[in-house]
C-alpha cells in the first residue's frame, strides 16, 4: 500500500478512502476527525465528529451544542476502529484538547499533527512524538527567522512595561482560544495576581479553561461598568486584536497596544498593526522545533502543509528526508 492510498488531499480536506472520513475538513462532510478547536480546523455542520472531549466542548461553546449530527469523544492513546483503519489521538501541545491523529492500516502509519508546539505549556497536554511512516507537519512559522523566545521572558517584558507606564492601560491582543488563556496563566506564573480585564469575546473560553482545572485568577470584564476610565490606568486588558482598532479601545486611558503572536518577530508586521509592545508568543512550533520534531519522529517521508511549505521542504531535502508540500486550501493563521 502507498501512503496516498491511506490519506489524500481533497478539496474538502485530507481524506482517508479506506475509512471514509476527513481530517479537519473546511466544509461540511459526513464524517470528520478534528485535531483542535481553532476555527480554520473545526467547523460546524458535519454529520459525525470524532475529537477529544475538550475539542468537542470548545466546538459546542463556539457553534452551539447542535454543531454536528453526532459527536464522539476520543481518549488520548485510545485505539478506535473506523472501517478498515484504526485511528489514535495523541497530544499536540497547541491548545487545550489539541491532538495529532495517527491513521494506520496494514502496518502503514500516517500522523496528521494538525497545529503543534513541542515546548511545555501550562494550559494543555504536552506534545508527544509518534513514530510513523509519514509525518504531516504544519509550516506556519517554517522560516529560519522564526525562533520564538521563551514566553516567560516575553511576559517579563510586558510586566516591566506595565510598571514603567503606571498611567497607561496595556491592551494585549490575544486570540480567544488558547493564546488568551496561556498568556493569562503565564502572567500569573510570573507572580502578577492583580485583576486582569478581559474583552467579552474571551469570557466563555476562559470560563471553560477554569472548569478544566486551569486556574486563571481574578478575571473581570473590561467594561465601563467595571469602573471609570481612570480605573484602567496601569491595568492589563486582554482582548482579540481586532477589537483594538475599534470603539471598544477608546474607553481606556492612553492605551498601549501590545500583541502576543509569533508574527511579532518581524518588525514590519508589528508596525503595520500599530503595535507598541510586540510580544513574541506563539502556539506553533518555531523553525528549530519543526526541524527537531522531524528528526525525533524520524518518519520515512514528510508532508508539509499550511504555511511556508517551500522552506521546510528545502530543509528536508538538505537532510535527506523525502518531503513534499500538501496543497490544502482554506487554512488561515488563527491562533498563531
Amino acid at each position, binding site marked *: 500500500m502507498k501512503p496516498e492510498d491511506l490519506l489524500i488531499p481533497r478539496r474538502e480536506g485530507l481524506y482517508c478512502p479506506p475509512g471514509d472520513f476527513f481530517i479537519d475538513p473546511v466544509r461540511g462532510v459526513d464524517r470528520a476527525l478534528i485535531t483542535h478547536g481553532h476555527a480554520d480546523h473545526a467547523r460546524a455542520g458535519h454529520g459525525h465528529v470524532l475529537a477529544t472531549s475538550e475539542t468537542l466542548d470548545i466546538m459546542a461553546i463556539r457553534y452551539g451544542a447542535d454543531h454536528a449530527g453526532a459527536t464522539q469523544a476520543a481518549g488520548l492513546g485510545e485505539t478506535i476502529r473506523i472501517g478498515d483503519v484504526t485511528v489514535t489521538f495523541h497530544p499536540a501541545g497547541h491548545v487545550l484538547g489539541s491532538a495529532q491523529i495517527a491513521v494506520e492500516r496494514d502496518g502503514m502509519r500516517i500522523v496528521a499533527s494538525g497545529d503543534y508546539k513541542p515546548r511545555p505549556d501550562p494550559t494543555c497536554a504536552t506534545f508527544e512524538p509518534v513514530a510513523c511512516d509519514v509525518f504531516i507537519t504544519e509550516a506556519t512559522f517554517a*522560516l*529560519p*527567522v*522564526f*525562533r520564538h*523566545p*521563551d514566553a516567560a*521572558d516575553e511576559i517579563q517584558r510586558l510586566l516591566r512595561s506595565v510598571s*514603567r*507606564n503606571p498611567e497607561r492601560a496595556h491592551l494585549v491582543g490575544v486570540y480567544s482560544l488558547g493564546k488568551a488563556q496561556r498568556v493569562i496563566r503565564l502572567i500569573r506564573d510570573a507572580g502578577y495576581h492583580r485583576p486582569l480585564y478581559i474583552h467579552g469575546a474571551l469570557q466563555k473560553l476562559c470560563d471553560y479553561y477554569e472548569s478544566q482545572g486551569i486556574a486563571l485568577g481574578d478575571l473581570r470584564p473590561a467594561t465601563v461598568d467595571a469602573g471609570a476610565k481612570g480605573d484602567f490606568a496601569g491595568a492589563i486588558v486582554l482582548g482579540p486584536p481586532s477589537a*483594538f*482598532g*475599534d*470603539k471598544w*479601545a*477608546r474607553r481606556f486611558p*492612553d*492605551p498601549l*497596544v501590545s500583541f502576543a503572536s509569533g508574527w511579532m*518577530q*518581524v*518588525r*514590519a508586521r*508589528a*508596525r*503595520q*498593526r*500599530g*503595535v*507598541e*509592545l*510586540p510580544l513574541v508568543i506563539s502556539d506553533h512550533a518555531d523553525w528549530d522545533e519543526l526541524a527537531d520534531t522531524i528528526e525525533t519522529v524520524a518518519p520515512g517521508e514528510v508532508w508539509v502543509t499550511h504555511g*511556508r511549505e*517551500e*522552506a521546510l521542504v*528545502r*530543509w528536508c531535502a*538538505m537532510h535527506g528526508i523525502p518531503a513534499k508540500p500538501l496543497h490544502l486550501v482554506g487554512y488561515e493563521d488563527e491562533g498563531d
Partner: protein
Amino acid sequence: MNRFADLLDMLAFTPSRNAKLSLLQDYFRTVPDPERGYALAAIARDLDIPAVKPAQLRELIASRMDAELFGYSYDYVGDLAETIALAWPEKADIRPGRNDAPGLAEVVETLQASSRREGPGLVEAWLDRLDPPGRYALLKLVTGGFRMGLSSRLIKQALAAFGKVEVNEIEELWHGLTPPYADLFAWLEGSGPKPVNAGAAPFRPVMLSHAIDARDFEKLDPADFAAEWKWDGIRVQATSERGISRLYTRTGDDISAAFPDLVDAIAFDGALDGELLVARPSGGGIETGSFSDLQQRLNRKTVTARQLRDHPAFFRAYDLLQDGAEDLRAAPFAGRRLRLEAFVSGLNPERFDCSEMLAFDSWDELAARRADPPLAVIEGVMIKRKAAPYLPGRPKGEWFKWKRDPFLIDAVLMYAQRGHGKRSGFYSDYTFGVWREPGELVPVGKAYFGFTDEELVAIDKYVRNNTIERFGPVRSVRAGPDTGLVFEVAFEGIARSSRHKSGVAMRFPRINRLRWDKPPGEADRLETLEHMIDGVE
C-alpha cells in the same frame, strides 16, 4: 548591546514624543559612561565608525546558512539587517543575559581602533555572542542604518530634562562636544563643571515669534515696532569663527555640507540670523527664486555642479547676533539692525543681502502691504519690537508673525489612517484628492489637524461606515461624484512636485472646514491647483 537594543526597539515602536523623551532620560540615568554616550552618538548620527557594507553582510550569512533558505527568509522579512539578525545560526544556546555578550562601548571602541578590512570578521564574532535583538542593533549600528525619526531637538530636550538645564544650553554646547560625551554627562549629573565649548562657530539658539491675533493689535503701538517680509525659505544661522564656517537650521542641525556655495561665501567673523533662499541666476545682485526653486536644493546630502549653477543659494539677513568678539544679543533690535546693515554691506552681494524693512504708521497700512506682497515666496510679515533683545526660544510679546491668508480648496476624502496616542482608535489622518478627470480623483495632500474632537468622532464614524477596502491601518473611503466627504483645505503655499502622483505639493495643508453639505462632484479640479502654482511662480 542588550540595553542599547532594548532602547532602539522601544524608541522604534513608541509613537508618543513624551514617551520617547522619558525612555531616553531613563536610559541616560541607568546606563553608565561611556556606553550611554556612544548610544547618544549613534541615535544622533554623530558616531564615526568604519561602516560594514550590505554586500559584506551577505557574504557573512552565505558562509553560515543555505542560500535558498536565506532567500525565502529575506523575501519574507524585507530588511537585510533584520533577516540576518533573526536567521543567524546560533552556535550554542544564547540566552538573554548571557554575560559574554559584547557591550556597545566594546563594539564601538574596537571598531574605532580597527581598519575597514577587519570589520566583517569582528562583526561575525560578535554575532555569535549576541541574541537576536542584540544582533539587530549591532547590524544597524555597523551599517549606519538607523532611521529612528528622532530629531536632534528631541534628543537635546531629553538631555536637558535629564540634567534639569535649559535646552538652549545644550544647543550652544552641542557642536563642541565629542562622543562619548563624558564631560556633558558629568555636568548634567552635577558631578562636573559645565563643559566649555571648544568648537569654533557654535550654534546660538534662535529667537522665534508668536502668531499674531486680531485682538493683539489693540494692545500694540505701531510706533514701538518694526516690520519686514516673512520669507518662505529655511530659517538658518550663518556662523564663522577662527576660519570655521557653518550653516545651521533653527534647530541646530548643521547643514553646511548641502550648501557649499553659500558656506564658501562666508567671509566674516560673527553670526547672522536669516533666511536661506535660492536665486535665479542674473547679472549681479540677487533675483529671488520661488519656493519650487528652493525645493531643488532641499533634502539633499550632496549637491551637483548643475544644481549649484542653476539654483544658487543665498542668505537674506534678519539679524546680527555676534560681530567678531562682540555678542550683540542683549542689544535692542533697532540697534542690532543698524549694525546688521553695516555688516552685510561688506559681504558678497550675490550671496548676502539684508531683509527689507517695511515702513508703516498704522496697522492698517501694514495690512495693506501684507495683502499685496511683491513676490509669492513671501508668506506674510514679521513684526518685531524695536526694544527687544535677541532671546532664545519663543518669548511672549516681542516678535509676531502675521501670515498671508491661506489658499483654500475643496477636496474629497480618499483614505483615512488610524492615529496614535490620544487619537489611537480613531481614523484621524486623512488623504484627500481633487478631480483630474470627471470620475477620477488624484490624491493631493494629507492633513491631521484642523478639526475639533467632536468633528473627529463624526469623520471617524463616516470612515467606518464608508470603507471600501482596508490595508493595515489604512482604509480606503468611498469617494465618487455623488457620495463622499468634502473638506475645505487651507494651505500656505503650493509648488510643482515630481514626487507626488498629482504633480503638486502643498505646504502645511490642514482642514479648514468640513463640508458635509457639498456634493463631492463640486470639489476642485487639479487644474485649479495648477493655476495657483502659475500664479505663485
